[in-house]
């Protein structure tokens, strides 16, 4: 009974749901309040899916990683404190990026073997500036090809390039997310660009 009285009553404050801070919801969710956790899930699922979608383009995989992220969030809620660290949004983004990084390491180079001669011709056409995505079909091919090319990079290189160019994050933000120093982020970004140039120059 006492546990029930400690729970956050959303029925009472239904109109003010948006007013309740993430931090407060996190406190209630960490004490086992399912409604508070559901509210956090509703607020942040799109954010998490968009981050994961920068790294992976199959919706099944994106869903799987989103599930994994929220499971991690659930068990890490007790350790979360906005006073000691980042905001809840930044914290959950960090968990999402780390989960993507783990998946990148697991699936590394799996797609490399399926690289065809046709793919090579397409890359060469792109490098010459001749290819344009005019219709949906060519866009899909381009995405598939992009994944095959990126699979040739190390997970570290892919992570940093996706955050810089895909997610358009600043060096300071990436340093904050990954826990690396700003100079390390810059060095890694430089190396990652060189690696990508090397991958692409194989087609020249």
């Amino acid at each position: 009974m006492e546990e029930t009285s400690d729970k956050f009553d959303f029925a009472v404050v239904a109109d003010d749901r948006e007013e309740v801070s993430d931090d407060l919801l996190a406190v209630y969710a960490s004490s086992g309040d399912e409604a508070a956790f559901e509210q956090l899930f509703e607020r942040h699922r799109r954010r998490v899916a968009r981050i994961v979608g920068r790294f992976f383009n199959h919706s099944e995989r994106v869903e799987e990683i989103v599930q994994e992220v929220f499971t991690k969030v659930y068990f890490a809620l007790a350790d979360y404190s906005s006073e000691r660290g980042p905001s809840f949004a930044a914290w959950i983004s960090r968990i999402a990026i780390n989960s993507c990084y783990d998946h990148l390491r697991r699936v590394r180079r799996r797609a490399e073997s399926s690289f065809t001669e046709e793919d090579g011709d397409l890359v060469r056409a792109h490098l010459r500036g001749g290819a344009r995505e005019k219709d949906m079909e060519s866009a899909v091919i381009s995405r598939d090809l992009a994944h095959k090319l990126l699979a040739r990079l190390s997970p570290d290189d892919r992570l940093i390039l996706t955050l810089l160019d895909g997610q358009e994050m600043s060096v300071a933000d990436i340093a904050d997310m990954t826990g690396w120093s700003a100079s390390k982020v810059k060095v890694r970004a430089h190396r990652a660009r060189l690696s990508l140039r090397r991958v692409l120059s194989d087609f020249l």
Partner: protein
Amino acid sequence: MFRGKKNQAQEGRLDEVGRQILRASAMTDGEADEAASSPFLLARVRARIAAEKGVRERAPNDWLSIIPAFRRAVPVMILIALSAVGVSWYLQAGAPVEQSNQSVGLYPDPHGPQMSVVSACAISTKEECAISTEEVLATLVNQERQEAQ
């Protein structure tokens, strides 16, 4: 100089295509939102959480399951230790008496203290223990003479 500019232009082109590839590989925000709006996503998250809870709850039980095994292992280990002591005692009892007297020093021996000093000095680096080989030989000869008398 011209070559350097050409290289720069080529690198710029490679970087540009690289950025295009990164953008092409990513889902659009709309697609990501669609993936996040899957009707059973929260239900699946809850199922995963429940499964993970189950694993975490079983983990301490697994640790506790070591205790009965440990309880069975202790008497066996005691038996092994006792039999090892018994065997070593039996072997010591079967050894020559003279050797055991010298090594253990259970019985009074007129040369006992000297022997122990020599043994102690063998592992000591102190100056007073620095006995030369001649001195050791002389002591042994004296002992033999005394025994002969």
